[in-house]
């Protein structure tokens, strides 16, 4: 009995990973479906049917919260739990706490989503959930940190692999951002007022907002990339030294870049310039990482042709390069004066969200789910169809929003000889219908691909046997 118990303590805890992956897939379908619906509402506003809970103002934050906190964070938790055990050669520290994170996080997303539909909203972008949810998120996040860092603390090998640096950065920085940005005075159970007001509120909001993009949607997913890309390519990362340098450069420079969201606003000019300069510096670590990833695959071309998981991961790196070039360019004030408040920003966000975050997650899941299920992927053909649907959807989305955004920016800046606007806001928005229509088509393509992924992966998981995976022999013997 004791021997069995001791041995079972050596197994990697993958059941919680499987459940988190399953929830992430569910949230990806729901979140993208809501995104498609709000995109359709911008073409056909009557689609709200007069119901407040179907209005754009309630569905848009639901879309962002479900895709970011449901789809992305569940995927990050799953992959962090999966990889930290393996790169530490020990099972998860406090597995019961890992299960608590998994279940409590999903409950928070369900309840939080319903609260947004009910119109309960803290009015802070990407932090719309009211104060009870902020406290719940903090508790789950602290438990996530305990499991993750506890596993690293009891590791059986000395080096801390680079993916864990990125996941660790994600956990620490998001905790700091969430707590500071959510500081508020509750007045009822469903209403609170931020402790910040005016320009300081805007600065704190975009310090949070931009670094949530930085450390969650970039840093966290880089952790995913640094573990799953070498794994899937069957080769170590091209330059491990470069990955370490890129981590520190990324961490040091990203945290300063938020004020580029507030160009030409009522904040000090030097803060705006600082945000712009640090955004430009970010190009270096971003492209270093992209080049490191692409070079890692350079010797695995044969596998790249046939393996849908690797295809998705490599494509995601291309979009990562695109988005991390475009971002610093948009932070330059003379470019920002055209792009700000236009759909160009929406296109930029989605080149990262669809092209980078979703694609790398899909690639990782196509690798991970068959391993967790202990069987081959249900259909490679469906995964390949998904690849082309996702690529077509992303490209069409970005091109439509670039067209819309650049048109809006240039038309809004167009003045007549006495300095008055040549075109009214209403006329310009009225001319956007073709672009918004194309976005709906892009959304249909991307969501169709995601539905294929969900079907394919749930069929792979169906009737799954228990796969017990243990650390490599030497480490296992040490632990015993």
């Amino acid at each position, binding site marked *: 009995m004791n021997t069995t118990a001791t041995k079972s303590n050596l197994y990697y805890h993958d059941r919680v990973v499987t459940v988190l992956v399953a929830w992430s897939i569910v949230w990806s379908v729901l979140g993208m479906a809501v995104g498609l619906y709000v995109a359709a509402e911008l073409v056909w506003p009557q689609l709200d049917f007069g119901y407040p809970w179907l209005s754009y103002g309630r569905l848009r934050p639901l879309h962002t919260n479900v895709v970011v906190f449901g789809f992305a964070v569940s995927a990050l938790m799953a992959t962090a739990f999966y990889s930290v055990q393996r790169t530490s050669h020990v099972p998860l520290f406090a597995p019961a706490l890992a299960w608590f994170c998994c279940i409590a996080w999903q409950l928070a997303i369900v309840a939080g989503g319903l609260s947004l539909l009910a119109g309960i909203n803290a009015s802070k972008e990407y932090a719309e959930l009211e104060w009870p949810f902020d406290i719940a998120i903090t508790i789950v996040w602290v438990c996530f940190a305990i499991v993750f860092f506890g596993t690293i603390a009891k590791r059986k090998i000395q080096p801390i692999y680079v993916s864990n640096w990125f996941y660790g950065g994600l956990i620490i920085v998001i905790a700091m951002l969430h707590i500071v940005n959510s500081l508020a005075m509750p007045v009822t159970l469903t209403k609170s007022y931020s402790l910040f007001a005016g320009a300081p509120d805007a600065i704190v909001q975009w310090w949070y907002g931009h670094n949530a993009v930085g450390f969650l949607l970039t840093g966290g997913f880089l952790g995913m990339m640094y573990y799953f890309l070498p794994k899937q390519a069957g080769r170590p990362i091209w330059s491990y030294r470069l990955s370490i340098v890129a981590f520190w450069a990324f961490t040091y420079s990203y945290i300063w870049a938020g004020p580029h969201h507030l160009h030409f606003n009522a904040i000090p000019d030097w803060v705006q310039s600082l945000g712009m300069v640090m955004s430009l510096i970010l190009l270096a670590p971003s492209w270093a990482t992209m080049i490191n990833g692409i070079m890692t695959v350079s010797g695995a071309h044969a596998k790249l042709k046939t393996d849908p998981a690797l295809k998705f991961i490599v494509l995601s790196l291309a979009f990562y390069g695109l988005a991390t070039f475009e971002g610093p360019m948009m932070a330059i004030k003379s470019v920002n004066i055209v792009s700000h408040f236009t759909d160009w920003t929406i296109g930029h966000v989605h080149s990262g969200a669809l092209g980078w975050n979703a694609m790398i997650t899909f690639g990782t899941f196509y690798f991970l789910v068959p391993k967790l299920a202990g069987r081959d992927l249900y259909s490679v053909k469906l995964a390949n169809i998904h690849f082309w649907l996702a690529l077509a959807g992303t490209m069409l989305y970005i091109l439509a929003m670039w067209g819309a955004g650049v048109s809006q920016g240039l038309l809004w800046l167009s003045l007549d000889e006495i300095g008055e606007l040549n075109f009214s806001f209403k006329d310009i928005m009225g001319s956007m219908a073709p672009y918004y229509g194309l976005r709906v088509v892009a959304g249909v393509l991307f969501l169709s691909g995601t539905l294929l992924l969900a079907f394919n992966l749930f069929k792979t998981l169906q009737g799954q046997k228990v796969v017990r995976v243990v*650390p490599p022999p030497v480490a296992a013997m040490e632990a015993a």
Partner: protein
Amino acid sequence: MTYFIFIGDMLVMAFMVAVVVWVYWRTSDDVINRSARIPLDDESTDG
């Protein structure tokens, strides 16, 4: 303020140069290669 930003940028550069020097100077090829291979040799199946 321009000087302030300039000095700040130079400090960022100095920090990054220090990181690069530290990574290349304080780590041996053996340690780097072993670290890079961690994901490739991290599990065995049992049952």
